[in-house]
């Protein structure tokens, strides 16, 4: 305690301290009310366009076609084998695509981060440009390249590498190739951003202490790039779970993912609840996964969309 406050305490006694505290509390309350008032419009917006529809979706999913409360929309997932199969396929595709994105995206982001600024920004344009092109257009382009009489197969046959065309489209491989291409920027961009922030002095210090290039990368650069990698992986994985266009066009009807099933079920059943239940399952699973990632990797991984 400084001298003036001691003086104040002595002159005004305990009552003065209380008054002071009260005034501070009231001020704090006013402050938070003001903040709340400032936040109110956006909070209301979030509530009206996110919380209410999701709550409604959940509510709808609890009704059967006769308008009675029931769990039949969820029971269906266990009665009909195709739903579980779809669920497994969705996760399988998400794992493979995320893995492929990491294998391709990490070296790419690393290269971008090591290039001189000007060269890096030109290369980044090549990463971002497809990002701006419609998913539908890119998927059809892949179909042209991958199908039996497409570019790759005709080149390989002309070169005599293969005699029978490879099955690249209308199956799992087509879906994986198409989705990897579309989702790659979602991994590369956060990873590149995090790699750029790695202090090169740390790397130099490591070298100075006798670490070779491999050890420097493995022990210093790689661990420091992990938060960026983790956030990229989370984004890609979560986006995979809800993918529709690419599997629908590239899968040849053999790779049915959850979002495609939602569309099918919504039009097949006369009650919205049937489709809503699929939506609720996807939402819950996605949130649970985000929670799991957060728990495993720490807040920084899932905190990409918070300020950094």
């Amino acid at each position: 305690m400084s001298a003036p406050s001691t003086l104040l305490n002595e002159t005004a006694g305990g009552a003065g301290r209380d008054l002071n505290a009260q005034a501070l509390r009231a001020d704090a309350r006013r402050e938070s009310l003001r903040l709340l008032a400032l936040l109110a419009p956006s909070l209301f917006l979030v509530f009206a366009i996110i919380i209410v529809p999701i709550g409604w979706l959940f509510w709808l999913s609890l009704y059967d076609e006769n308008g009675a409360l029931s769990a039949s929309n969820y029971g269906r997932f266990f009665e009909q084998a195709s739903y579980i199969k779809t669920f497994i396929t969705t996760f399988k595709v998400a794992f493979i695509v995320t893995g492929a994105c990491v294998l391709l995206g990490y070296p790419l982001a690393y290269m971008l981060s090591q290039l001189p600024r000007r060269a890096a920004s030109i290369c980044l344009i090549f990463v971002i440009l497809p990002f701006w092109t419609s998913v539908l257009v890119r998927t059809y382009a892949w179909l042209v390249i991958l199908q039996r009489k497409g570019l790759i197969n005709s080149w390989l046959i002309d070169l005599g590498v293969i005699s029978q065309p490879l099955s690249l489209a209308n199956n799992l491989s087509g879906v994986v190739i198409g989705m990897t291409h579309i989702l790659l920027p979602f991994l590369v961009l956060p990873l590149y951003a995090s790699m750029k922030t790695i202090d090169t002095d740390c790397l130099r210090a490591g070298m100075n202490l006798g670490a070779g290039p491999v050890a420097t990368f493995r022990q210093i650069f790689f661990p420091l790039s992990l938060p960026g990698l983790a956030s990229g992986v989370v984004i890609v994985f979560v986006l995979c779970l809800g993918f529709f266009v690419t599997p629908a066009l590239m899968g040849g009807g053999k790779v049915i993912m959850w979002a495609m099933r939602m569309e099918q079920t919504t039009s097949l059943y006369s009650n919205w609840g049937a489709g809503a239940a699929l939506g609720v399952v996807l939402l819950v699973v996605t949130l649970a996964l985000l929670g799991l990632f957060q728990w495993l990797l720490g807040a920084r991984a899932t905190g990409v969309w918070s300020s950094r």
Partner: protein
Amino acid sequence: MNRTSVSILAVAGLMATVAAPAMAGDTITVASWGGTYQEAQTKAFFTPTADALGITIKQDTTNGLDDVRLQVTGNAVKWDITELGADECARGSKEGLFEKLDYGIIDKSGINPKLVHDDWVGISYTSVVLIYRTDVFGDKGPKTWADFWNVEKFPGRRALSSSQATETLSVAALASGLPIDKVYPVDIDGALKSVDKIRGHVDAWWTSGAQAMQLVKDGEVDMASIWNGRAGTLKKEGAPVSFSFDQGVLTADCMVIPKGAKNKEAAMKALAMFVSPQLQANLPLYVDNGPVNEKAFETGKIPPERIKDINSAPENVKKQVLQDAEFWRDTLVEATEKFNNLIQQ
């Protein structure tokens, strides 16, 4: 649109109370599937009707029964008439989504009675046909669904529809050797057994007409089930393909007036015009979907050399199975779930 339609409604209401049937100046909104089909309908049905009745016909596109259900249950009916698939009409009718039709205004003669109901009426036909590539098979390709199922005699890549389970089940029933008049009522488990035999040899399951067309056009498959309109387009574009209406599956489209439609009376008159032989005869002049009213073939409007290519011409109807909308109304969900379980195994 709201303010004008409200005032129109008010005027129409006023006129109705003085028992005046005149509709001149009314505006109705008709929804259909869009694309070349709706363009053809515009030329064949909508423009002539608007001119004859002195009304304005606005257009919209629909995704099907879901849209109607959303509008009717949400008390926000935008459309006065909308097109649907016949099985959707049958289902929507069971759900009570449509207004009753007045067959005093709509003349149902010439329309197959299976497509004339209290609250929905057929409007046009599409056929599911077997198409094959002539650069692979010459003219000795698979002609029947039994041929399509015969993988030894006709080796090659195959595509069937997975989105239209009911059509694929009808085709599967034909493949198991049933004559066309014995397909309905479909023995669903028997048809599924038939699907089970071919599913390992299906290289792609299509979910849209455009996809079916692309698979055949690019040679991704050598034979497929496909809608006749898409098959006709492929042929016109010069793709090496062949198809016929033998063992085709005729599926009807229908039109309804959604419950709570704002201009019901004008809609009824317009619908009467749409199904009349004169306007029905216009449709095959612009698109491969056949007229639902067989009297259209007696109007003399359709050139004789065109008639043989129209799926609903009496000669061609004999070769095909008509999808029974009411049968599928009651069995669709169960059959589709079983079908999905099977092809995703």
